[in-house]
């Protein structure tokens, strides 16, 4: 994966803006930002971010590749869409945030253990395997992502809710063994592989 990063660096030398335009979802919009700061002021989580969307866009233009891609800022986006609604330049900001996060993830530059990143990874892995999200396994994986001890503590804390869910037939304990799946997971895997191949081609990933 770091390999992918080295390739990208070699390919775009120091033109980070072009890299973003070509390889990040909706990245071609970054140049259109007029730095009004409306997104930064609109984001309900704005003050929790190290760099607001406005700043991220400026950093991209200023070629601050390392700082942008290793930042956890874009991982903070909750997809509330406030910014998209308000941006006078109609930038799909939310999608760009996700695009940047995804790109940083693919290059393996995204911060390790970043909670959003971990949730997303577990969710995707569960989904991509069977075509269905296995809620029980997903929840357990979440509980235990920070180790056995923490996992047991988490499970204990959620015990009563878990039991209530079982009682009301919202949670099937049998899901722990295999679990339900879509009709043909094999074809789903092929589709996903194909989609990734197309994306890689479009975005110029060689691996």
């Amino acid at each position: 994966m770091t390999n992918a990063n080295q390739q990208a660096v070699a390919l775009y030398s120091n033109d980070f803006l072009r890299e973003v335009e070509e390889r990040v979802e909706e990245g071609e919009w970054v140049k259109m930002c007029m730095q009004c700061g409306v997104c930064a002021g609109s984001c309900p989580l704005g003050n929790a971010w190290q760099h607001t969307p406005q700043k991220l866009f400026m950093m991209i233009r200023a070629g601050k590749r390392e700082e942008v891609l290793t930042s956890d800022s874009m991982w903070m986006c909750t997809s509330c869409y406030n910014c998209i609604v308000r941006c006078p330049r109609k930038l799909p900001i939310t999608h760009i945030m996700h695009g940047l996060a995804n790109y940083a993830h693919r290059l393996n530059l995204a911060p390790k253990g970043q909670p959003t990143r971990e949730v997303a990874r577990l969710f995707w892995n569960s989904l991509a395997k069977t075509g269905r999200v296995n809620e029980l396994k997903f929840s357990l994986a979440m509980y235990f992502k920070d180790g056995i001890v923490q996992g047991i503590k988490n499970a204990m804390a959620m015990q009563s809710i878990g039991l209530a869910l079982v009682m009301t037939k919202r949670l099937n304990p049998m899901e722990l063994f295999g679990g339900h799946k879509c009709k043909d997971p094999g074809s789903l895997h092929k589709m996903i592989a194909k989609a990734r191949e197309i994306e890689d081609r479009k975005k110029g990933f060689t691996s």
Partner: protein
Amino acid sequence: MAEMKTAAYICSGCELGNRLDVAQLSKIAQKEGKMALVREHAFLCNEEGVQMIRDDIEKEAVTHICIAACSRRSKTEAFHFPTVAISRANLREGVIWGIAEGEQHDEVRQEMAGDYVRMGCAEVKKMTLPLGNPNHAHNKRLLVVGGGMSGMTSALEAAEAGYDIVIVEKEAQLGGWAAKLWKRVPFKQPFAEPQDTGLAELAGKVSSHPRISVYLSSTIAETSGAPGRFSVQVKGAAGITTEEVGGIVQATGFTTYDINKLPELGGGKSANVIDQAGMEALARTANGAAIKRADGKEVKSVVFVQCAGQRDESGTHLPYCSGHCCATSVKQAMYFKDANPQVDTVVMYTDLRLPGMGEDFYRSAQQKGVIFTKGKVSTVAASGDGCEVKFRDLILDEDTALNADLVVLATGQVPTAGVNLEAWNPIVTAAEGGSAEAKQQRVEMQKTSVLNLNYRQGPDMPQLKNGFNDSHFICFPYETRRTGIYAAGPVRRPMDMLQATEDATGAALKAIQTVENASLGRAAHPRSGDLSYPIVRLEGCTQCKRCTVECPFGAIDEDERRFPQFNESRCRRCGTCMGACPVRVISFENYSVDTVGNQIKSIDMPDEFSEKPRILILACENDAYPALDMAGLQHHVYSAFVRAIPVRCMGSVNTIWITDALNSGYDGVMTMGCKHGDNYQCHFVKGSELANYRLSKIEDNLKQMGLEKERVISHEVAITDSARVAELINDYVAKIQEIGMSPMKGFN
């Protein structure tokens, strides 16, 4: 002239009859006003009422009428009797609408109405019917100084409207600044690409227009005269030609701020730091191909530094924004991107200002990949083969730097406005006092003049701010203080080409208005159409020169005997000269020291023990008097102890009115004029400022008379101040009641 025959008409419509004792007012008009005819009417402004007046004028040979009804600002069309002198007693807005209702106020209300009738009668008897400036002239040709975009547009617009035009251009060809451009900022849909300047076509139309004649490589050696009869000496290669014109448009444009004054930005230090004009030259040389620097190297990276030497708060450079430069840099960045999209183009700005449809243009540049960085440049210095631009990134909040092959500084517009009269006048005074040095300075200064006016007040138009030619920014942006001469384009204020062409059209229309008015012997704006004009009784003149100096419009010259010489067509009828004259020899037929003075003296002055003070209000007719009318209309109730007289401009207030009023027993005098100073709103630009100065001296007079200084008070009043005027009046009446009645009552 026919014998004076007076008549008063008292209206009882609009509730006047219910709130006032009209019969008593008629008696006042008859007995005290000495009106030969007095008539009442229940609805004076209707057809029948108007016909009654008309019949009296025709059959009874009435020459002077006083209409006691609504404000002089109302029903002007109904009460339009151009063959007689008219005064208006304001009983509606000024009395029944503004004064408290109810029986307990009947007495003071009636007294107020009675005084307004007395005043109207007193005024009209001192008036004569204005007959129009006898020295008017009919030349309607226009001179356009400057053959650039603004000048050519002005010329063409006026020519198309049927006027003959002379253009004088100092360069050997038409085009001015626009001729130096590769392309212009777009002014048509979709506002996305730089556009052809269209100059060749415009110049072609101008050169071939049957109504336009053009002098190239020529300047103006002298301008004399007045609207309708300017005489202009055009100096060209072939010598001097005299052109007679009626009006002038000055469209002399601008030069760029000298880049050498910006060494910290590399100006004059590095060949790779140029201004926007230099950039246009490079683009013209490239002619659409890759742009090269002066040394022949193809430019691969360029930084545009906005606001270079502009919006400067330190007092070193231009304090203002030139308005066009952001769009110009956007356009120039596109020159690079259009020739080669690989060129790195950065526009470095603190605020990007793209008025009009500039937003679309900005977006288009972003689409093309121009990078916009919000940053404040500290230095530009030669580095390697190019330049290093050091700046503070205002978004990322850090000091950083960029390297570029070429740096373009967006310097501003410096107007070509001619001599600064504020610097000129002291030099002239010194030169006339015999100083050899000042004489030399005067000669040097005169060389920079554009118009070379032979006016007593100096050779060019006054400058308003930062060296730009005149403009009444707030109310009448095209107006200048030299009647019949209009500034158009960037000589008036910083602007882009599109604004300049609109401006030029406006100025052409203004010039047309003046020549038309002048040819009829009427005033130009803002008393457009006024037939009165200043008349001076030279026998009494002491040659103090106050009128010559104070006339805001430079209308007064000096004759060989050093007497003031009025150029009526240049006069705007503000009356400032009348207010200035210490011996009171200047007057208008329908507005004079006497028409106002007589009103002041005509009122029925209660005695000292009546507890009914009388306060005179001198209110500017442009703003304060309408505000008073509005106060009435909106029922902002004010004291019935005031008596308001409209004046043409505060500048026309002669201090004799104030001292006369106080001498005859008024307890206080309020003046209400327009705002003066930097953001002045005075319709006559300097009138209220001069009045303010004169009034600042009134305290001495008060002291001599043994009166408190609070007996005279001045306020700046805007037309929107209707509620405020009522408050001002009521506060002042309370104040006067506190000080006590004037001790001067009963001495006359």
